[in-house]
């Protein structure tokens, strides 16, 4: 059985990608997934060699032929996303692809057309296959692209006999996060002990709970506020959430990034050791 784990944090910049990349270096027989499709960074540490590329069509977008349009105003009246001005001018960038305008147009002046919203890749890295994507600037349907990336990962795992999929999740709690964690076996929540880190991690833990996914917690940069760290430890204790480790603030993370390596490849220091311990604990829960 292929196991899937997603690394999330709610707040951005807590160290998701740094940790996920190191886990990928430590794990055996895995597929690496970067599910942060609108600001993907994992490839900067993995230097993937792209083996195949596919165009991602997002939701369709309305296109209007002004030569046919009779300015009846039906599109403007029925569009709920403000994609039409009162004078029936279409703003495709506001279109959410619902196709209501196409349906209500009495003269067929509007057509829903495909929109190339990004690219999905299957690549090779020194740690094994990696599945990732790039959403074009300002595109919608990023949740749909995450779903595609995850499906690709499952296919690759099956074809190549891998038994683990590690998913670097996006920040937030919305569609891309939901798409990255539905149906996985485990989530790891990376918490930075700032008040905002705590606030956002609580929200994303509720999302995991909402979808019935077991969660582990790891505290990153725990020494930037030891008081807050204590509060997180207590909260997790009370809630019965296992804490798999604490990592101190360490410049090694930035240095490794500058060197385009994972922390565990770059150094043998205390941060590297802490990450190794964490991964061991995660493996125990996962397998």
């Amino acid at each position, binding site marked *: 059985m292929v196991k899937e784990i997603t690394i999330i944090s*709610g*707040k*951005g*910049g*807590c160290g998701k990608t740094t940790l996920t990349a190191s886990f990928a270096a430590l794990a055996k027989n895995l597929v690496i997934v970067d599910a942060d*499709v*609108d*600001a993907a*960074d994992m490839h*900067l540490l993995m230097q993937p060699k792209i083996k195949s590329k596919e165009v991602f069509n997002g*939701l*369709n977008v309305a296109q209007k032929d002004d030569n046919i349009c009779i300015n009846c105003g039906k599109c403007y009246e*029925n569009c*709920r996303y*403000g994609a039409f001005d009162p004078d029936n001018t279409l703003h495709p*960038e506001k279109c*959410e*692809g*619902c*196709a*209501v305008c196409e*349906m209500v147009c009495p003269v067929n002046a509007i057509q*829903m057309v495909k929109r190339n919203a990004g690219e999905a890749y299957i690549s090779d890295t020194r740690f094994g296959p990696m599945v990732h994507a790039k*959403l074009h*600037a*300002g*595109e*919608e349907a*990023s*949740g749909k692209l995450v779903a595609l990336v995850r499906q690709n990962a499952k296919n690759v795992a099956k074809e190549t006999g891998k038994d683990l999929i590690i998913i670097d999740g*996006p*920040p*937030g*709690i*919305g*569609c*891309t*996060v*939901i798409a990255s964690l539905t149906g996985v076996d485990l989530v790891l929540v990376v918490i930075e*002990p*700032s*008040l*905002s*880190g705590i*606030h*956002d991690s609580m*929200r*994303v833990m*509720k*999302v995991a709970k*909402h*979808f019935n996914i077991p969660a582990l917690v790891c505290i990153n940069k725990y020494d*930037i*506020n030891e008081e*807050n760290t204590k509060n997180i430890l207590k909260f997790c204790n009370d809630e019965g959430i296992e804490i798999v480790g604490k990592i101190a603030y360490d*410049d090694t993370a*930035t240095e490794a*990034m*500058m060197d*385009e390596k994972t922390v565990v490849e770059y150094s043998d220091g205390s941060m590297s050791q802490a990450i190794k311990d964490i991964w061991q604990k995660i493996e125990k829960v996962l397998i």
Partner: protein
Amino acid sequence: MKLKIVVASGKGGTGKTTIAVNLAMSIENAMLIDCDVEGPNSHIFFKEPMVKLKDVSIPAPVFDLDTCTLCGKCADFCQYNAISIIGEKLLFFEELCHGCGGCKIICPVDAITERDHHIGIIEKGGNEKLVLYHGLLNIGEPFGVPIIRKLKGFADDSKTTIFDSPPGTACPAVESIRDSDYCVLVTEPTPFGLHDLTLSVDVVREIGTPFGVVINRDGIGDDRVEKYCKEQNIPLLAKIPNDIKIARLYSKGIPIVEGIPEYKTLFADIYKRIKEVI
């Protein structure tokens, strides 16, 4: 009319909220709107609690199954696959529905009406000098954009409005950036910071909003972000040093301009530079 300034960044955790809050606190007659409805953080820097102002809902269909003939037109039409007919059963997946109303229009027997589907709330807070609005997307709800649209409506033309954008380059960030007069892109001088900055620059250029860059945690990493800004003729508005004192204040929810008042000039200068450009 006063300026609308949005603070955005591709990468999360670069310091958007820090810049937005401290910038707003360094400008006379300003207000703050936190558009990160998935993880709003601006309120953490105010002592006063947020107070609920209103609910945000989107329309969702209600199916009268006695009238429904299971013709399947609604399921065929729905672009989000929120409706499906399996055998003699109509299934509706509320979390996939965007509330477009198409199913209601296409139903030949008028079996569909609409009700409000609650997706989140808007709250008001801040203090007597600086009003703050933010939104909270309900847990498990995927789409925060309707809340962001409502939030933007609270901008008061008689005040300089600072918007705190969610991270990324997808629809929530685009909705937050759109309609602003200026965009401050926050980044850090690391490979991740640079890469995500280039993505944000693509987005802001496409929207057409004038923009400049603030480098946060200056001192870590290298000078590639600065070189990139020079090459691209992007104004560098400020550099905020990598200072453990700032990180500690942040972790406790204390604004920099309160904890280290010397920084007030830096933020006031960012605003001055923006005003010069526009």
